[in-house]
């Protein structure tokens, strides 16, 4: 896959912690290479779901680092449930992945 997302979701004491690593250049559009600006290319919206229901929506932008690492926690997740991650960037490219809570 061109744009892989690595996910780790674990639950303990009723709290599920999701950590993910998203492969993306996240070019801000302000950096020059050989005198020419690298065109902006960054994730605009990233959505995290739990069994299909949205639990977190992130509005990212050019200030987020390349290959971002992101982690958050929510209540109500159980072992074996599905966590989904999907993003869309400013060029309309998208990627999605789902994983089971361990």
């Amino acid at each position: 896959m061109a744009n892989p997302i690595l996910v780790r979701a674990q639950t303990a004491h009723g709290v599920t912690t999701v950590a993910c690593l998203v492969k993306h250049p996240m070019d801000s559009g302000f950096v020059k290479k050989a005198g020419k600006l690298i065109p902006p290319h960054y994730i605009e919206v990233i959505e995290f779901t739990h069994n299909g229901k949205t639990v977190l929506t992130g509005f990212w932008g050019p200030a987020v680092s390349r290959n971002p690492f992101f982690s958050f926690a929510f209540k109500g997740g159980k072992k074996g449930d599905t966590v989904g991650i999907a993003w869309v960037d400013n060029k309309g490219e998208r990627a999605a992945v789902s994983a089971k809570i361990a």
Partner: protein
Amino acid sequence: MRRWLLLLLALAAPVAAAAAPNPAADRAAFQGWFRHLFPQLPLAKYVDGPYNFSASERAQWQQIMELPPYGFAVDHGKALFDARFPDGAGYASCFPHGGIGIAQDYPQFDPKTGRVVTLPIAINRCRVAHGLPKLKLTTGDLADIDAYMVRTSRGHKIDVVVPDTKPALAAYEAGKEYFYSRRGQLNFSCASCHLQYPGHRVRGDTLAPALGITASFPIYRSKWGNMGTLVRRFIGCNKNIRSAPDKPDSLAYRDLEYFLTAMSNGLPIAGPGARP
């Protein structure tokens, strides 16, 4: 008369010590220096570099390491490593044990060319032997291949051999002189920061100890946003002290890597690493 002889001997001893390079004695003194600085810190822990000295950085790092940022580079490096050359061979054919678990034996001294060969340079040599162009030694595909090969060597004890021959010892001694010589407009040596002040802070950055510093390379630096080899870091260090950097494949950097890695013999390979 006997007193004169003793005095002569006492005078001659230090001269002899300075004249004949002795990597084993140097290593004992080098590691002893760090043990003296941080008596509580086990030797194997030095490979974690700055994270030994800052609790907050360590906590962040441990969280990051759940999904290491160099993961993509290792996967990419493995794909490149496993790909065949146009002549049908692969990287595995150039190295002992098929290139798996051997990073601890580099850099090596090549008696044929009389030069030190680091792992990235060995990867390029392999390419040239099979009719392919060299790759950039600092970052990109080569750093990814390096990352994969180092990943397969994790935990192996660093074992850099300095043969007891004149050219090998000369290369070692040149690397040692480079490490301790002050250079650049700011008048720093490698030792000024990484031997005298490990664990101290330069602005917000914690200085890594020279001992074990090579064990985590190549590294994913958040500042870079991708992988970089040890030579890339040498170049960055030189620029920081306003010293014009050498070429990535220069003898100066090869010898420096030779000396520096030899000082960490016995410590485990911990690369690829992640640094701020």
